């Protein structure tokens, strides 16, 4: 890395907004990872410990057990969380990071 670039990069690392943004991104990642893992754990615990609940039919007319919509919902929810994560990272945090980089001249 050329010396000028290295200096600018060092300026970026000590920029107060950059440090704050890194902390916010870290918290956001952990939050989203918790949502993904939490949804799956709820599904897994119901599946393992309360199987009879999941075997209950959705209604008297519809004999499909609750397990089927819950499993499909879990997959769709993971997809939704991925979408929210990608959109937030691409539109909110990337924009803020670019603004800080412009601020230090990178």
């Amino acid at each position: 890395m050329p010396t000028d670039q290295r200096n600018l990069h060092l300026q970026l690392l000590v920029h107060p907004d950059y440090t704050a943004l890194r902390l916010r991104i870290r918290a956001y990642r952990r939050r989203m990872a918790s949502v993904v893992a939490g949804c799956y754990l709820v599904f897994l615990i119901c599946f393992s410990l309360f199987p009879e609940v999941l075997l209950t039919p959705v209604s008297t007319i519809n004999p499909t057990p609750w397990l089927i919509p819950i499993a499909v919902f879990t997959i769709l929810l993971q997809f939704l969380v991925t979408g929210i994560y990608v959109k937030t990272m691409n539109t909110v945090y990337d924009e803020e990071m670019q603004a800080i980089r412009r601020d230090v001249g990178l």
Partner: protein
Amino acid sequence: MMADLNGAAMYFLVSFLPLILLLLWSARRIRTAAEFYAVGHEYSGFRNGLAISGDYLSAASFLGISGLIVTSGYAGMLYAVGFFAGWPLILILLADKLRSIGRYTLADVLNDRFSNPSIVLLGTFGYFPVVVIYLAAQFVAMTYLLEYLFGYGYDSSLFALAALALVTAVTGHMIFSSRAQMIKAVLIFSVTLLVTALAYFSAGHEWPALFNVLQVTEVQGAGGHAAEMSLAGHFYLTGGESALALLSLGIALILGPVGLPHIMSRFFSVSDERRARMSVFYATGVIGLFYILIIVLGFLIIARLPDMPPQASAEGANLAAVYLASVVGGDLVAGVFTAVLMTVLLSVMTSLILTGSSALSHDWYALTLGKTRNYRQEQRLHRFASTISVSTAIVIALLSEGQNVAYMVGLAFSFAASVNVPLLLGALYWEGLTARGALIGGWCGLIAATAAVFTGPMVVIDWFGFEQAIFPWRNPALFSISITILAMWYFSVTDQTSEGDGREDEYSD
């Protein structure tokens, strides 16, 4: 019930050759990491997303999960949900983080964080059972397909594949590119959709009746696999496993993929982060839809094939989807379907052989020896590691006749979850982890997982025919991960040396 084997085999041969030629034409022969990371730069988010799906979608999982739903009922669904749930975690916990520190493999991260060759070697050893069992699952699936098509015995078909795999191990390059992976994704998704649609519309099913397996079983009465299905509703939900065993399996399924960061490699092969994330979003949609299709297909097999061929259960139900294809689409659909599956399986096999052996020859040897490395020696080590991986996988496949391949993939994931995941996440997110804690914890997890498998039901009951196993669970992840984490924590907090205080700050966010 079964298709005319010669007819299906003929359509298979006619379809298989162009498919292989198509993949070879679309692929580039990749020799270096630099070449690999350069191949995807020109692709859009959607196209790169399709390529990522091609990396992740596995014909072995597909055959195995649909078969498990047939033999173990709803328990098979845990595999579909679990295999998918690991995917967003990889994106959130690993992808951006690895990209920001510029490290792409487990060995890279461990070497960068600890600069300790013993830990990198541990990562390589942790990767070995994952690759070997995953490879064995591909062998089992391909062997059954060959047996179905050409009528050779299990052993003969396996030895034919073994010869092919050993040639690949000694001479092969990674035939691998974004375009080839895109084609692979489109092929496997299309044939799955086709067979599902044919099965659904040809019988005029209604959704509620389709998913009520117990009701369907009562209508069909006893006989064939239906007798097994009607044992009890509880069996049908749990597959006969205890609650803790299911928890253990479920944890292996979600964490296993996180221990295989190389499956995100295409995330790094596009030039900017936004496009990379968008491609993962598209990939997630394709993969999610694929797993939902597998669930539907599993229940369609139960509804359409009340009298499964007698050998289906002994085959681990791995061919249930193929039997369905032959019933609803005849020889033509069965032949094309098996040709696509075989193409995908072969592609995964070559990738596994080469990436697995490069974990030793490149990641460990090159990273630890640095400038003193010798290219010819590295090549010899690569061939040696490939041959050992393939030979071990063949022995496992030989002993695993009748095993369901999704179960085998789950077992491979339990090793990844027990060793690679704690090491990787610990190195990336835990400032207090020391080299001593990582090393001892990782070895403890690897030994615990290995011991649990060798004293567990697969080896003791299925391989050697004893009535009861010493370790009760088929998937040991919960047990071995707990040991890894406890050992990592204890040997880190009691570590009085300064070793491992290298790069925690850079890894702290």
